[in-house]
């Protein structure tokens, strides 16, 4: 188990993308498509015989030499480290990059990359914000069809519906296992550590789905065999780290300071759907309808049929969380905005909460540690 987790951590920390290079060496005609960074219809990419890679910047593993000047002050780190990966040649294993309508900085990054790397296929998916409108279904299906056609051209082959359905089956299985691990952790948070689940799930961003599914199964066995004793911790739901990821040290710190993480939104794209995507009928339609009707809630997906602040309360109740910790990346505007309505609703419901701001490049956590410890103590001894 330790070896498995060590391997996952290594994959997650690798800004040289060794797993992607290895896959390309094994698939000489294969293409790798990076998606930035929350959600993409990976099934379409995989069905085109390509490797979809979830790209969350470079974290604390890359010094900014060039990208700071291109993006200026007040812009989040993940946008800059992603561009830095490109400007330092590290995106070489990729043939394309896919963006979507998550925020304004990310959207501009898409086109800055397009200008600076004309050899790359760079595309932007418009994921609808009006899920209540019947017309959004047809629109999103056409958007996925456009993506499929672009990938077919890049791959030089047609993507058959059968192949798409097969990929939906494989990713459904993968997501089901991840959902299962999250359920299990909520029941026995002492058995599955937050950082372990984090690296385990996020490693999937860099691996073919079948390989990641096998790895998850191995982890199930490992966790089941593990002897673990409950600790004196409070049950906490972590929200707002859906895009830029906090340093691993910060996730570890939360647990060490006395929190059981019973829910979080780290690398949310890997378990984007609350239920399986249907595998019968038109696969693009199934993908589109699932995005509109079966997605998890996130600050970058807008669907006023169920306001996110209400869903947060539902999640707190479902996981029996005692408190919410907001982990907000510096300059992440979607998270800052949602925090206002989340905070208001939590206060109405009498649920304690704590806001922590982080940056990818954070090496010392003393101040945050004191804040978390004080917060936990207040709850443990109230």
């Amino acid at each position, binding site marked *: 188990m330790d070896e498995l987790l060590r391997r996952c951590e290594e994959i997650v920390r690798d800004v040289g993308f060794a797993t992607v290079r290895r896959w390309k060496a094994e698939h000489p005609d294969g293409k790798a498509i990076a998606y930035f960074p929350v959600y993409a219809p990976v099934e379409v990419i995989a069905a085109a015989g390509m490797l979809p890679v979830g790209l969350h910047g470079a974290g604390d593993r890359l010094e900014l030499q060039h990208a700071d*000047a291109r*993006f200026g002050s*007040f812009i989040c780190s993940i946008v800059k480290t992603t561009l830095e990966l490109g400007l330092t040649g590290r995106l070489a294993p990729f043939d394309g990059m896919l963006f979507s309508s998550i925020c304004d900085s990310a*959207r501009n990054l898409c*086109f800055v990359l397009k*200008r600076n790397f004309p050899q790359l296929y760079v595309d932007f998916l418009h994921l609808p914000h009006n899920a209540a409108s019947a017309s*959004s279904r047809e629109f999103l299906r056409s958007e996925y069809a456009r993506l499929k056609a672009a990938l077919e051209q890049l791959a030089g082959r047609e993507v058959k519906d059968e192949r798409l359905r097969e990929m939906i089956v494989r990713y459904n299985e993968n997501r089901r296992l991840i959902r299962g691990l999250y359920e299990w952790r909520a029941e026995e948070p002492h058995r599955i550590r937050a950082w372990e689940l984090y690296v385990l799930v996020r490693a999937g961003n860099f691996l073919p789905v079948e390989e990641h599914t096998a790895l998850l199964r191995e982890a199930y066995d490992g966790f089941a065999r593990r002897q673990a004793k409950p600790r004196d911790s409070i049950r906490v739901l972590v929200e707002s780290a859906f895009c830029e990821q906090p340093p691993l040290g910060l996730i570890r710190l939360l647990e060490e300071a006395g929190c059981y993480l019973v829910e979080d939104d780290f690398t949310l794209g890997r378990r984007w759907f609350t239920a399986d995507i249907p595998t019968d009928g038109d696969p693009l339609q199934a993908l589109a309808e699932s995005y509109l009707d079966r997605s998890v809630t996130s600050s970058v997906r807008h669907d006023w049929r169920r306001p996110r602040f209400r869903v947060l309360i539902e999640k707190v109740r479902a996981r029996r969380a005692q408190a919410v910790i907001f982990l907000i990346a*510096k300059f992440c505007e979607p998270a800052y905005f949602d925090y206002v*309505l989340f905070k208001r609703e939590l206060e109405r419901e009498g649920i304690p909460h704590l806001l922590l701001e982080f940056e990818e490049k954070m090496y010392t956590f003393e101040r945050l540690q004191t804040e978390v410890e004080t917060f936990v103590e207040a709850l443990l001894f109230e």
Partner: protein
Amino acid sequence: MTEYRGWIHQRQKELMRQWYARLDESARTGWPPAICLMISGNCVEVLEAFGIVPLYPEVNALQLAIRHQALGPILAAEEFGYATDNCAYVKADIGAYLIGVTPTGGKLPRPALVLCNFVGCNTYIKWFEHVATFLEAPLYVLDVPFLRDEEPSPADVAYVVAQLRELVQRIEEITGLRFDMDRFREAVRCSQRVEELWSRIKYLAQRVPSPFDAYFDAITLMGPLYVHRARPEGVEFFRLALAELEAKAARGEGVYDRERFRVVIEGPPPYPYFRAFRDMFARWRATAVASTYSTVGGIWEFGFRHDPEKPFETVALHMLAHNLTNRNYLQRYDQIRRYVQQWRADGVIIHFVKSCRLFSAGQGDMRDYFTKVLGVPTLYIESDLEDPRYFAEAQIRNRVDAFFEALERHKRASAV
């Protein structure tokens, strides 16, 4: 330094006062109903077809800033939970609501509908979700696909048209008013005329000297452009504005006694220091001959017009493709390039505003493109459009001075 202040400036103040009076009336009597919407790529023609008065939170925010009343509401919003790094337009607007302040002191109505015409700016959705929540008003997010390619696809247009029709139905249900197709066509016809007149005004800035400043004076014209575009008084205003500026051009009059520099300005202005910022350019007798900010609500100088024969389709096309915010970043580079070349500018001023990531994220790359690829002198400065705490006046003035000094040397050297 004096610059042109004519009839246009007085008349636009009257028109804005009229608009606030309508809002005040709506707030007091409940009639006409008001609907909140966004400036960028707005579909005000649909509202006009119902006789509904538009309520633009952005205009309120900028009015607060230009009247030096923004800081109080911003601090109130931060106290409430907004971050220092949230858009200050939103904070000023929501904060003003929290502490009960309006730009004119008059009343603002509770909107019958909060209509988020989402064209590019993600902050719009968050902002309007908050407005709808705090005012307990219904929300409709009209989702406009971002312009990923050069032109919108038929699927994009169909999607927006379907939502516009849905919106019409929603407004009928909420207000009890009936949609009037003839009135809609008339509103679209007014817009078409205003767009033609506005576009001709913009082309006057190609003259040397330019009879008006296409950044600072254009902002004066933008109020009536958004609030009255689809109304006969809008048409009348722009007809007379064009006549006044054409007469000025015919007399060979520029913005200043002698125009020394022609620049293109990218980015919104620092509203809390609007006057001070303008003076920095005025002292060099530098005229903005084009600006991207004046195209937030619509880009008409390259030919697009609303069409009363195809009202829904052209309203959709305007939202999709003919406003700055829904166009992609490289299309903005290209727009500025065209301005530099066709409006014969000496350089580009990039004003990074902290609040607006849609405008500002990546402007360093934009500078790289203009200086290194095109060889156009470019100045990059940073402040904010709403929050007075981010304007370092002396520092910005020094940079502006240094830029024009260098430009002067450059011009002299090229003249030899």
